[in-house]
């Protein structure tokens, strides 16, 4: 038996077999592989260099504009204000307050959205019951809920978390639902003919097959949550990046507004990259064309 099968591996599909065995044996054809790796890293270095140049040029233009009389603080002013706010602890406290709101709202939104999305995708009755509500409320910007939230929930943390929750929830629920609906029927049939029953198919086929969709939904949801934050913090907040910028506006304090904007941008980017990393880890099995 062994002899026959071995010859098959050796002869069968020459092109693909070699490329696959190169993957399986990292030491195959070392010279070509290292050359390839060197080319890749050179390319990456060039891209990084270009990005750095672009950022430096942008800051240069900003500096120039502020020095020829536009009503902008100079980069130096912003750095100084950023330092001041960091040293007196204001920035840290604002950061913690804002991040807590976003993460709590986002986490709750995702935790509720995933099961609801699965329910809608798996059971036609659940879809019929839930979908009209989701489609309707989805069209209302979460910010438009703020007046209602204040009347119902007061001016504490709850209304702020509620609107962030809504923003994250709607993005993620639609995506999860799509993921379940899009599961390849052949995979479900393949599991069925191997004797797997509905519960097993759900856990072992539908859930893993939906993960890429869920992660995309989470990324969109996080973006939406972050975007809703500043407005949510206009609701009589005592702390937070949005509140700080709102205060600065009253006093015509442009450097503080800039510090707030930059911090929000950088944090959003970092969180998105973290999710992207998780996505790469969890969905590396996907065939990309």
């Amino acid at each position, binding site marked *: *038996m*062994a002899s*026959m*099968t*071995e010859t*098959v*591996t050796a*002869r*069968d*599909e020459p*092109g*693909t*077999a070699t490329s*696959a*065995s190169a*993957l*399986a044996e990292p030491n195959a054809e070392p010279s070509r592989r290292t050359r390839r790796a060197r080319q890749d890293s050179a390319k990456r270095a060039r891209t990084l260099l270009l990005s750095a140049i672009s950022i430096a040029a942008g800051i240069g233009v900003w500096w120039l504009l502020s020095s020829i009389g536009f009503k902008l603080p100079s980069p130096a002013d912003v750095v100084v204000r950023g330092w001041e706010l960091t040293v007196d602890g204001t920035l840290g406290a604002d950061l913690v307050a804002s991040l807590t709101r976003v993460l709590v709202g986002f986490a709750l939104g995702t935790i509720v959205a995933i099961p609801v999305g699965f329910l809608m995708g798996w059971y036609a009755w659940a879809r019929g019951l839930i979908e009209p509500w989701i489609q309707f409320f989805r069209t209302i910007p979460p910010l438009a809920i703020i007046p209602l939230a204040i009347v119902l929930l007061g001016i504490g943390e709850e209304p702020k978390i509620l609107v962030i929750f809504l923003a994250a929830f709607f993005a993620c629920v639609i995506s999860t639902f799509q993921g379940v609906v899009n599961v*390849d029927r*052949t*995979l479900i*049939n*393949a*599991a*069925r*003919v*191997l*004797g*797997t029953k509905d519960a*097993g198919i759900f856990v*072992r*086929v539908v859930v*893993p*097959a939906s*993960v890429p969709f869920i992660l995309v939904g989470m990324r969109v949801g996080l973006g939406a949550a972050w975007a809703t934050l500043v407005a949510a913090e206009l609701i009589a907040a005592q702390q937070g990046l949005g509140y700080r910028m709102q205060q600065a506006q009253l006093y015509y304090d442009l450097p503080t507004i800039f510090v707030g904007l930059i911090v929000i941008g950088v944090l959003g980017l970092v969180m998105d990259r973290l999710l992207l990393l998780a996505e790469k880890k969890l969905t*590396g*099995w*996907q*065939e990309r064309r």
Partner: protein
Amino acid sequence: MTTTTPTAGGPRISVRNVTRTFDLKGEEFVALDDVSLDVADNEFITVVGPSGCGKSTLMNILAGLDTPTSGEALVDGRPVTGPGPDRGVIFQQYALFPWLTVRKNVEFGLKTAGLSAKDRREKAEHFIEMVGLGEFADALPKMLSGGMKQRCAIARAYAVDPSILLMDEPFGALDALTRVKLQEQLLDTWSREKRTVMFITHDVDEAVFLANRVVVMAARPGRIYDVIDVELPGPRTEDLRLSPEFTELRNRVWSAVYHQTPGRRVDATHRAIAPSPTAVA
């Protein structure tokens, strides 16, 4: 028609007067029209026919993924009510779980059956070796070529030890060279680990090369057009394809597939082949 009792010599698969119609925008499409067929234990039959002749529908009914509009499909004398591990299915699109390695794919059905991790691993190992994927056991499907993917799917189907293998154009998406190699390998595996095989194809050469019996189907309505026994001298190797016997059979099947007389149909049950013995007690 009474349900036959499972007997040692009885057919493994019996299709009895199966009709399957679909509603296509208000119009009735007859995918299968009163089809009857028997397949003996350890027989290798191929089903060949033009598109729309209902060959995949027939397979889906036997797999339990579809139900007949009338008539019944029996396996070992019992009506098919749903999919089960006694009938392994191999799909044209491979249908490997892309997030699982070759090993985990092969273990999938064993896990369903409740085997321990150790037993699963041992069994999977055996069948992965059988199809020659030993060094790719821990590779993900995306790293495999089409032929390797289908070998993995064959190992996965074999692992749950089905008595019947239903193969729906398994090599249809592969290049000609790979297809020929896999045909030989499949026969080799089959001769070692005998199973009752129903293999669907639209490739006449493939149908003749693999089969004990070729079932030719016709479309509109989907029916069995002819049944051709394949008796070939010697082992089924590359050389056989050049023999006059092979060529003659292939030409017969070819003309049955491509020059069909409208309305012709045959009964492919065993009682039609051998006159039914009087009163089987």
